[in-house]
């Protein structure tokens, strides 16, 4: 915004392999959300290249970006961002709707993913009838339903208490165990250590990139 450009990210060289579970850490203003937005094609980078699954992501039209997001990416937000007048199942089915999947198939798939997050019996409930942890699990199911290449989670536990946070992380770990690539933006140390790799950002540059021994969230649940 504004005419003055502000360089938030100042040279990030970062590569994530398939099946990785990466935590992106940093204090606020460090550029971690900007990085995630660029990865999520919600924002464009001024320079540099971004290659996702062998596809260079550059100069996308709105329509193309929407298609790529739909095909390649699943989003999990801090504030869940469920659509409040749609039931859990309809929320999960939404990305499938944008993929053009027929209604019946959509519903079956949505139920399958709700089952995986353990919320099948809550399928017909509206988000307002769910707890915070349940909402985030629905959101994860929604992100997974489109079978994306990468799952981008922006502070997925930011609005949850610690027990629920661990539940959600447990779910994320299990999804990762199945081979899905997941990037988690967080500023909580314990959440970061539940990932397999931690990337520390500070003032727009990577200051630390290390593999860690994963702490399983299961034991806290």
């Amino acid at each position, binding site marked *: 915004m504004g005419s003055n450009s502000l360089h938030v990210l100042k040279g990030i060289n970062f590569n994530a392999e398939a099946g990785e579970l990466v935590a992106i850490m940093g204090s606020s203003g460090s550029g971690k959300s900007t990085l995630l937005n660029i990865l*999520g094609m919600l924002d464009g980078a001024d320079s540099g290249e971004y290659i996702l699954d062998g596809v260079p992501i550059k100069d996308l039209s709105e*329509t193309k970006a929407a298609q790529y997001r739909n095909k390649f990416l699943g*989003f999990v*937000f801090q504030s869940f961002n469920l659509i409040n*007048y749609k039931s859990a199942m309809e929320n999960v089915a939404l990305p499938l709707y*944008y993929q053009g999947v027929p209604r019946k198939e959509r519903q079956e798939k949505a139920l399958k993913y709700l089952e995986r997050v353990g919320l099948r019996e809550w399928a017909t409930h509206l988000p307002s009838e769910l707890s915070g942890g349940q909402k985030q699990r629905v959101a994860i199911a929604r992100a997974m339903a489109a079978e994306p290449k990468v799952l981008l989670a922006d502070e997925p536990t930011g609005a949850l208490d610690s027990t629920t946070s661990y539940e959600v992380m447990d779910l994320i770990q299990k999804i990762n165990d199945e081979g899905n690539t997941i990037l988690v933006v967080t500023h909580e140390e314990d959440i970061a250590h539940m990932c397999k790799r931690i990337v520390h950002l500070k003032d727009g540059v990577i200051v630390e990139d290390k593999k860690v021994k994963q702490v399983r969230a299961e034991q806290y649940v």
Partner: protein
Amino acid sequence: MFDRDIWQEIFNTLKKNKLRTFLTGFSVGWAIFILVMLLASVNGMQNGFVGQFNDDATNSIFVRPGTTAKAYAGFEAGRRIQFKSDDVEYIKQSFADDVEYISARYFSNTTARYKSETGSYPIQAVHPEFQIIEKLIITDGRFFNEADLTNKAKVAVIGNKVAEDLFKDEDPVGNFAEFNGLPFRIIGIFIDEGDDNAERRIYAPISTYQRIYGNTNDISAIALTYNPTYDLAKALEFSGRLEDLLKRRHKVSPKDQSGLFVWNYAEAFDDISSFSAVLRAIGIGVGFLILIAGIVGIGNIMVFTIKERTKEIGVRKALGARPKQIVNLVLLESIFITTLSGFIGLLFAWMILAAIGPTIETPAFSNPNVSGSTVVTATIVLIVAGVMAGLIPAIKAANVKPIVALRDK
């Protein structure tokens, strides 16, 4: 477009903002209501005017002589023009293709008597064709024919009112009435759709009257109908030619406005239709202006709705909604509100017109109504209006940046 998800969303937003939806929808419904009522009123006026002229064939031309106002061809001004029987023959021959029916008219008054009943009535001596020109409807007996004309038969056709007055309960047909002391056989009774006054007339063959009154060839006026296939332009052109020719024949200056009069119904109809076309244009104009207010109202509610749903739209875009799909969603909602409320307005207007329209029957205003084409036009207008109302908000919505919409703080 007929996707359950889209409709679910539309109904949801409408349900959430019932009052707001009603108030904005009302403005469009009201606009359509007024538009339809205005158009129906114009229709009503037109019906009224046309009804006034209904008693004559719509392709008729009346010619009557006047008094010259200009000196011309060696004649002083102030000369009375007198038509003769051969004028009719002359027109018939000169305009064989143009004239459909033609009749001379000889105006007179008569005191009619039957038994003890007497009355004074206008009498017109005419040719048999006059029945068609004047659209006379014979309810009993017949109109006189060529044979009566040739034989100069003393026969007469009387108006319904004359029959009532003179013959009371008796059947006039076949009976003799005395017109100025001469016995005429009544051969028919007519009614005239135009007015009651016309039914106080008596018609007799022109030849009979010309002989009775001094064996003249004088006639008072000429009535004719032109070729019914003629459109307005051709009809006007024909009456122009007719006027020129008669003026020349009677040595009236071509510029003389009062020497003789050719009165073409087409002209009157032209005046009425251009008059009602202007009224209609005004009606449509006013209706549209009101409709624009309604459209702005709907556009307004849509902008608010979009603002409220910015975050949701951001989520949708993050999940892969294409800009086109967002535009569709907003447009469809806008079209839905406008069309629904417009139809409610249309329905109300139509119900009111159906209930009271047929009861309104005055000379200048009768049976206001809306045609099917009005309804179709209104529907198209509403859909266009919906698109117009929704377009700016829809583009606004499609341009929502997911990154901005999703910002949590």
